């Protein structure tokens, strides 16, 4: 069952007097529980795809369905709801809230989604797998890059989203931490069936995924 269905997706930006076609007719299907890597060079359009799929920017045309929800027809409020209910993000720069502790960074994601009560057994398991259970009262500045990225992964899946979007999740990490983070993403994918779509320029990182597609000049190859 496809959890992401993309047909003829286009995204055009206006840069001065010139139209830039960042996505020039992308077609893609991602099955539920799949770990997909989108690999491409800088400027290939992979980050734009990440932003469109995450509801951070609207597509220009085409059809995008995430967990059965048609994204193309959504207004800003609809895309906000999509981010709240169906998508979890992991960014290259971690993007944790610097004033909050690890626990509160996880709690605020639940609060935004309106989730109350104690953490589920499954999420406590995730926290243990990620190895952050002893860091709950620390602020991001007290954590290493690898630890911050593991917290960001926990935050991305705290509300059990339909898809986890990871944009260059190892871009700021050394090799050891990169392998650890990618291994954890794969482990979460396998253990909990979490669908993961990872954007990367690094073939070694892409190798952790079940399937890899290549992005070039706004088009996907091998999809």
């Amino acid at each position, binding site marked *: 069952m496809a959890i992401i269905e993309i047909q003829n997706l286009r995204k055009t930006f206006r840069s001065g007097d010139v139209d830039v076609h960042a996505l020039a007719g992308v077609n893609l299907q991602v099955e539920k529980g799949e770990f997909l890597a989108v690999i491409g060079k800088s400027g290939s359009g992979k980050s734009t795809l990440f932003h469109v799929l*995450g509801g*951070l920017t609207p597509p220009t045309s085409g059809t995008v369905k995430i967990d059965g929800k048609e994204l193309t027809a959504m207004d800003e409020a609809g895309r906000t709801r999509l981010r709240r209910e169906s998508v979890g993000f992991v960014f290259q720069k971690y993007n944790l*809230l610097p*004033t909050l502790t690890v626990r509160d960074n996880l709690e605020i994601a639940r609060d*935004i989604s309106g989730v109350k009560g104690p953490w589920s057994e499954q999420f406590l398991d995730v926290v243990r797998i990620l190895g952050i259970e002893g860091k709950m009262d620390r602020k991001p500045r007290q954590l290493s890059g690898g630890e911050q990225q593991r917290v960001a992964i926990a935050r991305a899946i705290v509300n059990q989203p339909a898809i986890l979007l990871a944009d260059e999740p190892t871009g700021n990490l050394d090799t050891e931490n990169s392998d650890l983070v990618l291994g954890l993403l794969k482990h979460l994918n396998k253990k909990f069936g979490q669908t993961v779509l990872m954007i990367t320029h690094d073939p070694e990182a892409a190798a952790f995924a079940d399937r890899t597609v290549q992005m070039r000049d706004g088009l996907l190859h091998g999809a």
Partner: protein
Amino acid sequence: MVYTLVYENLKHRPVRTLLSALAIGLGVTMMLTLVGLGEGMMEDQAVRARGVGADLVVRAPGSSVVGMGSLSMNQNILNFVRSQPHVVMATPVGIHSTGGVSSIMGVNFDEFSAMGGGFKFREGGKFADQGEVIVDDLYAREKKLKVGSTLHTMNRDWRVSGVFASGKLGRVMIPLALLQDLASANGKITMIYVKLDDASRTQEVIDGMKKQLPEYPIYAMEELIKQFSVSNLPELKAFIGVVVALSVLFGFLVVFLAMYTAVLERTREIGILKALGAGPGYVLGILLRETVLLAAIGSMAGILMSYGTRWLIATFIPASFVQAIVYSWWPIAAAITLCSAVLGVLYPALKAAKQDALDSLSYD
């Protein structure tokens, strides 16, 4: 959870939070100090008027109820007042302004003292000759005077002969005849204080006098004291209005600048919240809560600082001004501050709420 974020955000920039709260508090202090001065000075006037010990007062035609008055009433009327039934004592008082809120009072000392049950001298005693003056203890403290000190007023130097406990109408007193002479107002007085043999007949005596002196304001002392209220000072009410408006503007500007800076500084964090699915209302709610908390801290700081201004006034200018703590104005000042703060945060908060998630996340 939102409150944790709000609290942590304020804690994250302690100096800015403290300065913003203090600046907001200044507006509260301005309001409370001014209202407190109005109330305090009226209360002080009432206490000092009571200290005369009279049952009624006759004032000059056309004079204000709560004003200081001047040497404008003919002294001849004194004999008429003294001849009225039930009057056991009537003493004239002259008041001459010496600039600002200061004045010098002329009395027939023995008469005036007897009416109020006597003066309590902290040191020295009554004026003995034409060059002597008596002052109350608050005035002595403010002007650093003691018995034997020289006080320069009305273009001449006076020797302080005594310092008395305050509460006797005036702060600086000289013989009435001398005041009339120096003010070129011989035969003129400001008011006449009257003591009756039976205070319960005050209204009856007033009614009798008014029949023969219809143009003279004559008040029972208790009635007069009730008039010592800020509501009877339209100029002060207008001034309070101006200060409230300035405080609103001040609070608005402080919060606007503080929160505008905070929103710019937190652009990326706002982007993170939006990426997590926070809508405009959620972002708006965080900034509004932050502002309300800031306004609450500022209001408390302002209330505390109003105790500070009261201490400063009581320590350095106790004779010129008296500041009361007007509790009923605490919620009013806090509400005014809150409104101005909320007005101040509206633009930055709306700007933050409308921020594009992607642009915000790209902000460094």
